[in-house]
């Protein structure tokens, strides 16, 4: 498809397990973002990639969270030793513009993570 694709759409895991969430951005979009949306809240910034490098990871809550984008396209968000508080919808977005400042973001449908 032409849009941002995220897999899995739903993930249920147990506390302490490791989880990977994948994002396939729109072809040609160099900027990629991960957001987290908890119930009743708006999307919360986690990390921003420009090409292969993480240009800004200031939103990652702690060192259990890590993201990669090795070839400048697909990105994987990795969460180690999951906790119940990690339960949320993880949204990926891509943008044609090099910065988010004036460019709209194109969001995927999100990956809903539930940690039991």
């Amino acid at each position, binding site marked *: 498809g032409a849009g941002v694709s995220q897999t899995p759409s739903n993930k249920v895991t147990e506390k302490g397990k490791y989880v990977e969430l994948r994002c396939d951005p729109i072809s040609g979009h160099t900027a990629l973002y991960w957001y987290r949306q908890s119930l009743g*809240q708006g999307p919360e910034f986690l990390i921003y990639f420009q090409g292969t490098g993480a240009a800004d990871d200031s939103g990652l809550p702690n060192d259990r969270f890590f993201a990669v984008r090795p070839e400048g396209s697909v990105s994987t968000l990795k969460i180690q030793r999951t906790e119940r508080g990690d339960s949320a919808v993880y*949204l990926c977005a891509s943008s044609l513009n090099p910065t*988010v400042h004036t460019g709209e973001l194109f969001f995927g449908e999100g990956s809903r993570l539930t940690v039991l």
Partner: protein
Amino acid sequence: DQQVKQNSPSLSVQEGRISILNCDYTNSMFDYFLWYKKYPAEGPTFLISISSIKDKNEDGRFTVFLNKSAKHLSLHIVPSQPGDSAVYFCAASARDNNDMRFGAGTRLTVKP
């Protein structure tokens, strides 16, 4: 810290009437503002934006107003249609930041 606030979690209007969704922000460095619309089980989609050099931007039935002195913006939808029923997020960004800050959203219901 909640730098972008949408104080009304929900709004209900009659079809054909005007919907007004409000947003307040605290960071004076924000200079670009966007509204996103979200349907259930879908990601947010861009609706309309405004730069801080303007006070109004119109696109069809949608108009965004910006009051910089009050750090307030609003989205007007007129006439409202049942298909406009969705959650609307206000977002803001600053020139020196890569992240976009979102409000908590307002759920709009347009009744036929």
